[in-house]
């Protein structure tokens, strides 16, 4: 499902001494099925932006179109919007409240007014999508699970609404490296299996460089750069100036280039870095041997 945002502005505490412009005439569009990542330092407006996309925050001015529906229109029913746009907040495990995992995941579909059989099927499907075994987890209390498992249950609660657009706000915050990778793999597989459009908000350059089709960079309420990872990560100095960095592989390559090694271009994964270094070192070794 495509998204078009035009001239979106949001002002917090309008008219007060501490009025702040969280979003400043943001415009962009996302194609159906695309994987977009939004990065920016804390307070750049990422969270405010995504909360507009399913109508939880109302813009001060500007329009948002999701598919054919203009959700900023007052006549649009919010339930219809939330059915199509799934939003996973930061630390979503803090929203769990039911006695069993099964009931908690069913909360969303129930609010959509679905039949019991359909709800049940969706719970099974979404639990399997987040990699939790239904038989093993469905009847357990969500409060007795581990941190990583809680988060999966919470994400399943959103996926169970079967949104066409899935937005995740730092889904890996506070997880250990193992769970971190698992959650990212989970996002990839959900996208492959459901074909939904994904917007991922992240602090981690390595993740977004490898996963996203396009990256939006936000700074003080504006989208300042957008494009494929290899393009936006070309501007190392600019990114540093707004408090961001490069993916590790690209950073290593950039430092090596400064030290006199041949340019590697923008590397987005450690695999690419290994290939580059092998080529360079192999070359150097041959050269050394030739001199001897």
């Amino acid at each position, binding site marked *: 499902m495509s998204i078009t945002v035009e001239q979106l502005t949001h002002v917090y505490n309008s008219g007060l001494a501490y009025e702040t412009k969280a979003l400043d005439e943001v415009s962009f569009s996302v194609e159906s099925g695309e994987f977009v990542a939004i990065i920016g330092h804390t307070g750049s407006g990422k969270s405010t932006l995504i909360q507009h996309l399913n109508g939880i925050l109302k813009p001060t001015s500007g329009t948002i179109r999701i598919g054919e529906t203009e959700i900023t229109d007052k006549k649009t029913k919010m339930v219809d919007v939330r059915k199509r746009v799934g939003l996973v907040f930061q630390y979503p495990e*803090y929203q769990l409240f039911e006695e069993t995992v099964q009931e908690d995941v069913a909360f969303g579909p129930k609010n959509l007014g679905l039949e019991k059989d359909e709800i049940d099927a969706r719970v099974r499907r979404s639990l399997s999508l987040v990699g939790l075994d239904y038989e093993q987890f469905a009847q357990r209390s969500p409060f007795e699970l581990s941190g990583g498992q809680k988060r999966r249950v919470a994400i399943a609660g959103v996926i169970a609404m079967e949104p066409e657009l899935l937005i995740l706000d730092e889904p890996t915050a506070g997880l250990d490296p193992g769970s971190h990778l698992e959650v990212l793999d989970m996002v990839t597989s959900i996208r492959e299996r459901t074909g939904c459009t994904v917007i991922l908000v992240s602090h981690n350059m390595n993740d977004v460089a490898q996963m996203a089709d396009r990256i939006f960079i936000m700074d003080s309420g504006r989208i300042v750069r957008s494009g494929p990872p290899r393009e936006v990560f070309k501007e190392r100095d600019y990114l540093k100036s707004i408090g961001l960095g490069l993916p590790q592989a690209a950073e290593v390559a950039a430092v090596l280039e400064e030290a006199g090694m041949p340019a590697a271009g923008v590397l987005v994964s450690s695999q690419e870095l290994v290939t580059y270094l092998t080529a360079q070192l192999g070359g150097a070794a041959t050269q050394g041997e030739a001199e001897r």
Partner: protein
Amino acid sequence: MIRDITLGQYYPEYSIIHKLDPRLKIVAILFYIASLFVVKDFCGYLLVMLALGIFISLSKVPLRFILRGLKPIMIIIMFTFLLNMFMTSGEILWQWKFLKITQEGIYNAVFMALRLVFLILGSSMLTLTTKPIKLTDGIESLLKPFKKMGLPTHELAMMMTIALRFIPTLLEETDKIMKAQMARGADFETGSIFRRAKAMVPILVPLFVGAFRIAQDLAMAMEARCYRGGEGRTKLNALKFKRKDAVAALIMAVYFALAILDRVFLEGLDAVLVHLVIK
């Protein structure tokens, strides 16, 4: 949405009022509240209004911000107003079946509603101009005489500090949880009261769980810094009664004296005035 509540909020500003000793401010507000019940006529209210006006303008807190604090209690004010207007017996001005408005009723209604407004405005000024920490410091210091009677003043003050400290945290937490449940299609705005109460469960459960989690973290952090109660504890910023506090106390004394004089000498003036206006 939920952050509009100004009662108990602090408004950061550099003003003479903000810098006054919190103990003095607490006592002054108590006297102010007492003065509202001492004066019994509109002449007295002019005095109150003048004092409150000076107080607010000195504090530099924008009037719009203070007035926002009235919004949540508007219903109570309206209720008081209507009740007084219709329920006071006296000279009847207007009647429709069992409903009647009397001259005395209008007078009482305006008088009571104004008293409530003054009460809220004055007392919200205390929290608006005093940091919660200073406020509890002041309360602790004022309660000191009761310590000999076995009142755990430090512990009480600490509990109050923590409770105040948690208000914004819990509001923020509530806001987050509400948004998260709304994203899952929860609806808090429509339906019968029963349905709406039931819709609160998905907010309250995570909120309680969160509150316990935060409390546990805080207890641990306090213990890690060797907190073990008030015995022998000193303050980083000990309260000092300065000259400006003495001046403020003097002004307050004059104000209260005027209020008493108003009660003693001008009582009944209003009745004469009202009589003149109507006749």
